[in-house]
């Protein structure tokens, strides 16, 4: 009882890992005639799930006055993702992990680079909380976050829709949303001591309620804009050597998996017998309307 330490609360260090991804929004995305993505014509942006992770870091910045570092592995062009993430989060450090030998990495080899990167964040103090997105829009494996967590030795808490940090006890309380695909959905409350690794659910949205939070919000938004104008000042670029990576654990040598082949998915054998209807023929549409109503009214409503 009556806890009152002379020691000030230890500052909170946050790390975020993000990814530059194809922009799937209309007008920016381009598809080939066969329905596949035209990567050359499609713009790249900070992926929406990475943006959700960045927002979660901004929440820590506003609410807990945290120090925020954002890292990404990729070619130099991935700078764009870091700059966009800085605008969202008012980050203090931007890390680019870039080396030709990282190319072709699968999730395990990527996680190795990110593990080393996180340990260099926040002036080498690392991070008390690492945040990733749910999954990338292009790779979509959702494996890199948890694998990075495991390699860091941090417990992984996925699909987080809300969280709070207790800075005195240095612990997190997080709310998870779990979809069981047709079974039902579950909301779970989790508690764990720091450090932890969380992935922000796509639906994550921070809220700022108190007056002091709103003041902090305004100040941080202003700062973020001016920082991002000079984002290079905050940028640190690490190659393999700078990270102290073991070359046999990163890039292609460190990747257990390879892409063996890519092919068009053959059309499935038709399971239904399709009947074609001319959409401009009102008489044909009338039979459709009748059919639908028949199906709708004959079977009793549950």
């Amino acid at each position, binding site marked *: 009882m009556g806890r009152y330490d002379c020691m000030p609360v230890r500052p909170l260090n946050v790390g975020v890992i993000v990814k530059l991804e194809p922009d799937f929004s209309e007008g920016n995305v381009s598809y080939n005639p066969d329905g596949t993505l035209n990567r050359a014509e499609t713009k790249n942006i900070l992926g929406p799930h990475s943006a959700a992770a960045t927002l979660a870091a901004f929440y820590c910045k506003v609410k807990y006055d945290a120090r925020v570092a954002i890292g990404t592995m990729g070619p130099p062009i991935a700078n764009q993702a870091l700059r966009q993430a800085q605008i969202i989060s008012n980050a203090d450090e931007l890390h680019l992990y870039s080396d030709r030998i990282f190319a072709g990495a699968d999730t395990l080899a990527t996680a190795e680079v990110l593990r080393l990167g996180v340990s260099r964040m926040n002036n080498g103090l690392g991070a008390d909380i690492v945040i990733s997105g749910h999954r990338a829009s292009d790779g979509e494996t959702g494996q890199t976050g948890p694998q990075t967590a495991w390699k860091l030795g941090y417990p992984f808490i996925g699909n987080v829709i809300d969280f709070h940090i207790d800075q005195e006890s240095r612990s997190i309380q997080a709310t998870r949303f779990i979809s069981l695909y047709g079974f039902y959905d579950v909301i779970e409350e989790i508690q764990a001591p720091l450090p932890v690794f969380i992935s922000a659910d796509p639906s994550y949205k921070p809220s700022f309620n108190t007056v002091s939070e709103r003041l902090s919000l305004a100040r941080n938004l202003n700062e973020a804009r001016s920082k991002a104008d000079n984002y290079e000042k905050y940028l640190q670029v690490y190659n393999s050597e700078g990270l102290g990576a073991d070359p046999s654990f990163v890039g292609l040598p460190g990747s257990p998996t390879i892409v063996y082949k890519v092919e068009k998915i053959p059309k499935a054998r038709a399971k239904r017998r399709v009947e074609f209807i001319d*959409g401009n023929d009102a008489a044909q549409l009338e039979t459709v309307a009748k059919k639908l109503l028949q199906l709708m009214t004959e079977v009793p*409503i549950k």
Partner: protein
Amino acid sequence: MSEPTHNLESNSENLGIAEPYQHLYVVIEHEEGIPVPISLEMLGEARRLMDNFNKKYSSNEKVVAVVLGDNVRHLCDDLIKSGADVVVYANHPSLRHYTNLLYTKIICQIVEDKNVAGSISPIGYENYKKPRYMFFSADNTGRHLSSTVMAQLESGLASDINKLVISDLEIRHEHKTKGQLAKYDKTLEMYRPDFSGFLWTTILCLDNRNPAIAREYHPQSCSIIPGVFEPITKEDQRTGTFIDFEPRISDEDLRVKVLSRNIIKSTIDFESCKIIVSYGRGIRDSPEENFKLIEEFAKSLNAEIGVSLPISKRPYQTKDQHLLSYMVPERVIGTSGRKVSPVVYIAIGISGAVQHIAGMKESGFVVVINPDTDAAFRDECDLFIRGRMEQVLPVLTELIKKHMLTIEKRA
């Protein structure tokens, strides 16, 4: 860590000599003691694959179900009937609810345990190191669990798989084989549809045979899309082995606590409505106007509205809040969303990517409205209305209203 790759695959010719990597382990998910459907689907596919495997290689490797929980012994019979040869179960009050940390540790304890391997198959288990193959579910839980388990076992993982083949492959790879041709026997080809749903990527998990970076990568593992594989018909006379595994749990492993867990019903009720109307990127020419037509049409049929995955990423600039509330992940039909089976499913402006089809193929009667008769959906529907939604929907909605009125009058 790297170890010499001595006679790793060559022993397929020396039957009887045990290999360090054996069996197919399937990580079972259940909710309060009831297996979720994907668990039985994985066992079904595992059974088919290993039956062929054992025949082809004259071997006797097993399908091993791994199940964790509090009081899960009663599940075991069901898992055997559904295709497992062996069930390894770990009972502990701390395992009642999934936490990634503890589950990862215990699963790794089980799959690396020589004694467990000995109970699975006593022949040559002294050489056993790790599973040959491993399956997880590609749902929220399995996706994370597969990642952390493979990070611990330091092996490869492919996600969201919908086809699996075991074969002997000749591989020439810059790094894996240092450009030499090498034979990789009993390789699991893992087919993964990409985000567009039109390309299939085959992922392999291969040992590094290149002496400079030699490393063994086993198990070959993947997460499997719910709803694509068929469970086997349960056979009551099937028998198998149960192994009661004593989990080793430290205080450190218990530092993540589940404080509460509540089941919530989705606000969008796809289960009790008879008709679902879904729309996709075909609305792009005028999203707001087209959505009004779709909503009116759905209303006339008392239908719930679903969307394809691209729509949930809000690809259109619109300030129409009402429309935006219908462009959300909760409405996605498919492998990244919900699996539905209404009496009637109507797909408007959806091309029919495999992920979407997997979410609705159990529907009773399927109607497609699309100007492109080459759309993949043509093979998955009963009626294909060739036309633009702007033209078809107003007419169809009016006709339905008209006939509905007649039905109501009659009643």
